[in-house]
């Protein structure tokens, strides 16, 4: 049942095609889909076809990566390695003069540049007395543009305590994240495709300037039981562009040096 000649109008409904794909990949069929499949032979056939296709893809990938090294593989590696110097540090002829020359150049450069570095006018720190506006958030991985650094609206000021608390957490999480990044990364990850990246960056900037507003947005993005917003929170998530950004987009997109946005999506405070 191809989309061009489908019989069932369900395919045009938002989320149905997605649910069918998920069911084919995971075998998990949600209640709504199950109800429809019980009465629609066309969609049942489509699900079977997709599940078979998913199986064929998995088999194809497995075949693609099922090669064995040839019998002479290790011998070839040994032969190529034999042409290499032994592993570890090997003192080669010519390194002594090169090293001495390098050290001399560095020492000369340091001697010449030292007075310049000592001059406060050359320290690179801003010399103006006028301070740039400061966003109402704790240290964050991104620079927030002045245009969106306006103070929170009176309505949002109700959340001031929450903002401060969240901001403190943000600062702590930032440090914890930096420490964690030096080890194995352990943050939940969201990969964003190119066409959505600019929107995510805007949302991120809003979250930087107004954490309570961002928290409220997250809190409203799911349906809570019995008209209550349940306190929930993901302390930090990494938001990464799925495809590499174009060179020019770096100026528009403000990720951290490693190219990742880190967003606090804690909604506990906004939910109160």
């Amino acid at each position: 049942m191809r989309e061009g000649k489908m019989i069932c109008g369900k395919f045009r409904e938002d989320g149905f095609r997605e649910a069918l794909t998920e069911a084919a990949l995971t075998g998990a069929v949600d209640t709504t889909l199950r109800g429809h499949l019980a009465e629609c032979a066309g969609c049942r056939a489509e699900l079977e076809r997709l599940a078979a296709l998913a199986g064929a893809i998995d088999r194809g990938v497995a075949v693609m990566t099922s090669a064995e090294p040839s019998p002479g593989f290790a011998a070839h590696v040994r032969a190529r390695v034999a042409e290499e110097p032994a592993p570890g540090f090997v003192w080669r002829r010519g390194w002594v003069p090169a090293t001495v020359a390098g050290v001399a150049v560095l020492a000369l450069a340091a001697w010449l540049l030292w007075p310049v570095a000592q001059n406060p006018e050359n320290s690179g720190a801003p010399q103006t007395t006028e301070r740039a506006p400061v966003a109402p958030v704790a240290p964050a991985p991104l620079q927030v543009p002045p245009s969106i650094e306006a103070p929170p609206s009176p309505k949002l000021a109700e959340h001031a305590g929450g903002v401060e608390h969240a901001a403190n957490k943000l600062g702590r999480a930032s440090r914890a994240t930096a420490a964690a990044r030096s080890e194995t990364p352990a943050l939940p990850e969201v990969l964003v495709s190119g066409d959505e990246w600019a929107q995510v960056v805007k949302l991120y900037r809003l979250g930087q300037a107004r954490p309570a507003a961002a928290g409220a947005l997250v809190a409203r993005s799911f349906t809570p039981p019995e008209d209550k917003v349940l306190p929930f929170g993901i302390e930090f998530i990494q938001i990464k562009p799925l495809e590499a950004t174009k060179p020019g987009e770096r100026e528009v997109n403000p990720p951290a040096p490693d190219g990742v946005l880190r967003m606090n999506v804690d909604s506990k405070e906004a939910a109160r």
Partner: protein
Amino acid sequence: MDAMAQVLPESLVSLDAALEREFEQRLADSSALAVRVAMGVLRNRADAEDVAQESFVRAYRNFAGLRDREKFRGWLVRIVWRLALDRIRAQKRRERRELAALRQPAPPTVEDVAASREFERRLEAAIDALPEKLRMVLLLAGVEGHDMNEVASLLGLPQGTVKSRLHLARKRLLEALR
């Protein structure tokens, strides 16, 4: 270098010998992994073997500097991956890939064979179109015997990240081929 070896303390010489032995062990343990990862990217038997061998040579050069030897396999995978991509980019061999060596047993009819080859071609194109971070997880997970935990360990990623990337990769392939 031989002259230097003669004047080196015995302890240094034996350290080199120990490194050699350890590298030999890694070579025996990880050859299949290197060839399979290279094959997943290049899909050409001869190129995959060559890149895998070159990867071991690169690994050998820097083996003494590898602090955590337990991470050798993950390190090797990254070397293989980079060299394989370089090979593709430099030599533009996409059109000349050999598929016959790795084909599954031929289906019974000519039409089925043609369909199978067509599917293989489309699958390869769809995999090539995946972003690198999805493709790498997909191919590593495809290597026989690698579960999520092993892939996560090889790539130094959380298991949840590997799982979500693999799911996204399969979903994209399914969408591309449906």
